[in-house]
């Protein structure tokens, strides 16, 4: 699946998007976060426990307990600041 990062998270991780293949026991957004943290120091910092960020599955806002089954694109982003 594709993982995308936005705003400061993109800078911290170092890439805007990446293809990942998490193991089968990674079934929720929250488990994906934990798994992604070990990819690099930037991942660990951007996705740190307690950091304020949200997620979307296939462009719809998702909670951390949402199931990843069938997801093509998972995005992580800081709180929105538009308008």
């Amino acid at each position: 699946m594709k993982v995308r990062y936005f705003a400061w998270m993109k800078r911290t991780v170092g890439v805007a998007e990446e293809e990942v293949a998490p193991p089968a026991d990674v079934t929720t957004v929250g488990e994906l976060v934990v798994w992604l943290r070990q990819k690099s120091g930037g991942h660990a910092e951007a996705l740190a426990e307690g950091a304020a960020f949200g997620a979307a599955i296939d462009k719809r806002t998702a909670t951390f307990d949402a199931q990843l089954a069938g997801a093509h694109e998972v995005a992580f982003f800081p709180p929105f600041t538009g308008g």
Partner: protein
Amino acid sequence: MAVRVQEADFDVGAELERLTTGNKRIGGLAVFVGLVREMHVREGYHRDRVDALTLEHYPGMTEQALEAIEAEAKQRWPLEATLIVHRHGRMEAGDRIVLVAVGSPHREAAFEACEFLVDWLKTKAPFWKLEETPAGEKWVGAHADDDQAAARWEKK
């Protein structure tokens, strides 16, 4: 009913003309135009001068989020016309960022729905502001008062 996300500026007069032409049931049109502010004056945050900002968004999700907010407004108020135009990319102080226009037979619905749309798009549509200040670039943090403004429209 329309939502647009674009890099280009918009012409407020032309947009409103297009929105209302041919619809004689509109008795009131409430309009909000958001601009890039030169100074940050919110106490407790930072006071650096903001010369310009770049608005990043999540193409695809942004349009869906704005359409969902627009649909919610239509459910809550009797609306004849709505328009949300939100820009992305680099903008300088004084530039227009966002246009929200709401037409209804009655002014109360137009005012309320317009305020609702602005409050919710700030907290529910995936946009992020990167400010350029004399001290360098700075990602804008979410403001608690924006969350509170959005929360007052949540149904209990």
